[in-house]
């Protein structure tokens, strides 16, 4: 299988008050055509910055190492015209807050047809017709009327569906969805995710789905990468991640969420707070919060390595296999 998107050893530093700070450290991931890949992490994990790096939308002054290849082409080396084509028709992005990514004084119709007219060279009339069809496909009622409305007249859920159809309009091969439902109510989230998932499958699009919710990622993705402090600490089949996490952090993340089906006396919570890459200790980034931390974890940074169809960045992944899948809570409670 040839990869559609291939990220290899990506590291990014950003200038903050005069010094370069690490925000992404050695991230590698591969997305095949039509594949959905989840990127899960807490704040500061670098998941959104990874998406920005893929779109080449990093803030000025950012320094990038490593390679990002789309369809075999080096994204970092694209010239102006090629970059416009890449952003305009190869990759589409859906953001967390649709309202801040639309122009409040332009109608939905203007917004949706702009890309079609510019990138596809469509006439205004044809573009409008296409927009109507697209809105219809994401189950927006009365699309003709919606096209005449302004962003503030639409609810968050509806506006996000408009954003999805606008993203689909340019017929991209990869969709990057950055927390597309975080700002929505839970029932709207289910609806928007269902539509996004359906449209993606129908069109055979690849997707990079960025979220803080492991279960949500598992519901719509084939494979999930868990990020912590700017690095991928684990990657494996999305549905297996919950049952058999290989990294203590992924295990902690999935166990820390309370369950809708039962309450527990105490949640297994690791101490400390999620760190950004530049704050992380020099050994294993998770070392100071890990219930299983050994001297080696403090001394030596683990590499991402393969373990039974999973990629994991932990020195003791083999030894912890059973514990993480089963009795992990006990250990964490003792640790706490």
């Amino acid at each position, binding site marked *: 299988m040839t990869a559609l998107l291939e990220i290899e050893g990506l590291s990014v530093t950003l200038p903050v008050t005069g010094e370069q700070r690490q925000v992404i450290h050695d991230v590698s991931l591969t997305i095949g055509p039509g594949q959905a890949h989840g990127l899960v992490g807490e704040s500061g994990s670098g998941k959104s910055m990874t998406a920005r790096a893929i779109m080449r939308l990093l803030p000025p002054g950012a320094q990038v190492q490593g390679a990002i290849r789309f369809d075999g082409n080096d994204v970092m080396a694209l010239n102006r015209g090629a970059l416009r084509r890449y952003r305009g028709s190869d990759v589409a992005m859906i953001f967390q807050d649709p309202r801040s990514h639309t122009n409040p004084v332009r109608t939905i119709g203007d917004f949706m047809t702009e890309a079609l007219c510019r990138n596809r060279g469509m006439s205004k009339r044809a573009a409008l017709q296409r927009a109507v069809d697209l809105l219809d496909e994401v189950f927006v009622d009365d699309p003709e009327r919606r096209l005449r409305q302004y962003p503030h007249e639409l609810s968050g859920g509806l506006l996000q569906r408009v954003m999805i159809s606008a993203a689909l309009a340019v017929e991209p091969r990869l969709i990057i969805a950055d927390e597309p439902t975080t700002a929505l*109510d839970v029932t*709207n989230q289910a609806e928007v995710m269902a*539509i996004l998932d359906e449209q993606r499958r129908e069109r055979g699009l690849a997707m990079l789905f960025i979220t*803080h919710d492991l279960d949500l990622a598992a519901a719509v993705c084939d494979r999930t990468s868990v990020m912590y402090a700017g690095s991928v600490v684990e990657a494996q089949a999305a549905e297996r991640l*919950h049952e058999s996490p290989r990294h203590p952090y992924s295990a902690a*993340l999935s166990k820390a969420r309370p369950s*809708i089906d039962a309450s527990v006396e105490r*949640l*297994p919570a690791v101490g400390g*707070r999620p760190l950004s890459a530049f704050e992380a200790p020099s050994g294993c980034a998770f070392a100071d919060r890990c219930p299983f931390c050994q001297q080696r974890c403090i001394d030596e940074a683990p590499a991402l390595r393969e373990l039974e169809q999973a990629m994991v960045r932990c020195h003791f992944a083999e030894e912890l296999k059973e514990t993480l899948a089963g009795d992990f809570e006990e250990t964490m409670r003792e640790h706490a």
Partner: protein
Amino acid sequence: MSTPDAPAVQVEGLRKVFPSRGRGGRDVVAVEDVTFDLPKGGSLAVVGESGSGKTTLARMVLGLERPTSGTILLDGTDRTEPPRSSSARRERAREIQIVFQDPYRSLDPRQSASRCIDEVLRVQGMSKAEDRRSRIAELMDVVGLDERQATALPKALSGGQRQRVAIARALAVKPEVLVLDEAVAALDVSIQAQMLNLLADVRAQTGVTYLLISHDLAVVRQVTEDMIVMQRGHVVERGKTSDVLDRPQDAYTRLLRDSVPRPGWKPVRRASAAKNGGASQSTMEVPS
């Protein structure tokens, strides 16, 4: 004033109408005929999505909003009207407190935790600096902040630490009721778990009553014994949290429950087949 058997919060027939803004607008009924009892030491969740009226309900109970009709009793005393005199305000402050959702904006950026709590205690009439200092130390211990964090400005603290400060501030005057307005919703998963454990500890230690305002059913299950579900201002279902979540009776409660991602969950479009019906309206089409 205090009655030993009276519920901590008793709300009856509460209604709030916001008058229309501008010409031709319709009045907005935010809360319609809400009734509940919250016994002392209990914990009640008010569950709903945006526009359900849950926040308006909480604001009325707190005295930040005047009900259009209905009554609010706190510890058996009528507190329907927002307090006017300064002594009434301080009295209400000792009855009910709040922790807000947004840890970044719920603290005065110019005050450290200890200065903030010191001021609260002074306003409440604790005149001896020594007493205040020991109470602050006690509170910092309850919420798990060290001395450096207690004297740091909010901008030097993480979201979770700020939320701990907010909890300490709310507990400072030993209130009967603590309103948790989406208090863990903005936190990272690992911090959220710490905070939920802290809330359990605080309740065990102080016997405080929780009124949790939330859209997150998993958090509701973890924190509360009873819950009411609100939709567009109305209570659509009420009962023990475990009963309501295990066997939801109302269609909207079922929809809420089924929309929560969990292991093995798949998102399903409402009324998947109906392409021309009202199914894709952004607002819910659920009978209540």
